[in-house]
Structures are given as C-alpha cells and as structure tokens.
C-alpha cells in the first residue's frame, strides 16, 4: 500500500515538473496558462490520492479530496479570468476580432 502511495506521489511530482517546465519554456502567455493550470491540478490530484492512501483514514482522505476540489475550482476561476482579460487586451487584433 505504501509503495503504491509513493509511486502516485512521485508521478504527481513529475506532473508538477512538467507544468513548471511549460511555464518556463512555452513562448506565449496563453500556452503557459494552458500548461500550468492543467498539469498542476492533475499533479496535485495524484499527490492527494497518494497521501490519502498512505494516511489510511477515510476522514483524512475526504479532507484531501475536498482540498483538491477547492484548488481546482480556484484554478479554473483564475485561468478563465486571466485568459479573458488577456484576450480582451490583445494589441493588434482588436479591429477584426469584434465578433468574439
């Protein structure tokens, strides 16, 4: 059981690393937004699942699941707000982009 939990945790950490590399290496802000919000929330879910397995208590597992849900909700809100503000403020495509 503990081995499965550790493997889940480290796979989650790899997802976090993928998100960070995406934040550093992608050329555009939208690409970075895309990489970060998905990979990180998936990694957090896997780490939470691994820790829930390792803790061996239903109460702790439920709390970890709720924390994951709140973080995903916040991440979604952030992603939408940021992308909307960026898309509305883009510099040179404003004249032909009015139908959006």
């Amino acid at each position, binding site marked *: 059981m503990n081995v499965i939990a*550790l493997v889940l945790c480290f796979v989650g*950490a790899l997802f976090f690393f993928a*998100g960070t590399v995406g934040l550093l290496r992608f050329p555009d802000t939208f690409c*970075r937004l895309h990489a970060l919000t998905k990979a990180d929330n998936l990694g957090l879910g896997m780490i939470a699942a691994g820790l829930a397995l390792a803790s061996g208590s239903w109460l702790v597992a439920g709390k970890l699941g709720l*924390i994951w849900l709140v*973080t995903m909700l*916040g991440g979604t809100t952030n992603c939408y707000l940021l992308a909307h503000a960026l898309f509305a403020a883009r510099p040179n495509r404003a004249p032909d982009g009015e139908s959006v």
Partner: protein
Amino acid sequence: MGNVYVILELFLVLNLLLGLVRVVRGPTTADRILAIQLFGTTGVALLLVMAHRMEMPSLRNVALVFSLLATLAIVAFTRLVGVTVPPATEAEGRS
C-alpha cells in the same frame, strides 16, 4: 520511509525555485500572475506532503488557505489593475 517524503518536498521546492525565474524574468504582468498560480498549487501540494511527514494535521488547513490565497491575489490583479499586453509579447515569442 520518511526520508523519501523529504526528497519529494525538496523536489517541490525546486519547482518553486524554477517558477521564481518566471517571476523575475516574465515580460508581462500576466506571466508573473501565472507564477503566483504555480506557487499556490505547488504550495498546497508541499503543505499536504509536510502534513503527512511531520504528522501535523493542522497543516492541511494552511494548505486550504494557500489555495484560496492564489485565487484572491489573481482576482484582485485582474479586476483592480487589469492586464496590459505590451508589444513585448510578440518579441518574447521568438525566444
């Protein structure tokens, strides 16, 4: 057994350090805000691992506050300041 979780924590802290590069270098405000989002999510994961390893269950509440903190900061930034896109965004695309 506990030592393995320390390696996990160190890995997550190194992730935070890498994200700091984007805060320092990021060309627009939006990139820096994105780094706050990264810090929020990674901080939650780090605190959950710490809560397990150090056997302090109250750290899970701190993780909850962390996840709300990132949302608060980003909502404040996009609503109060707004995001400007300088022409430097296209120049950044080449690198």
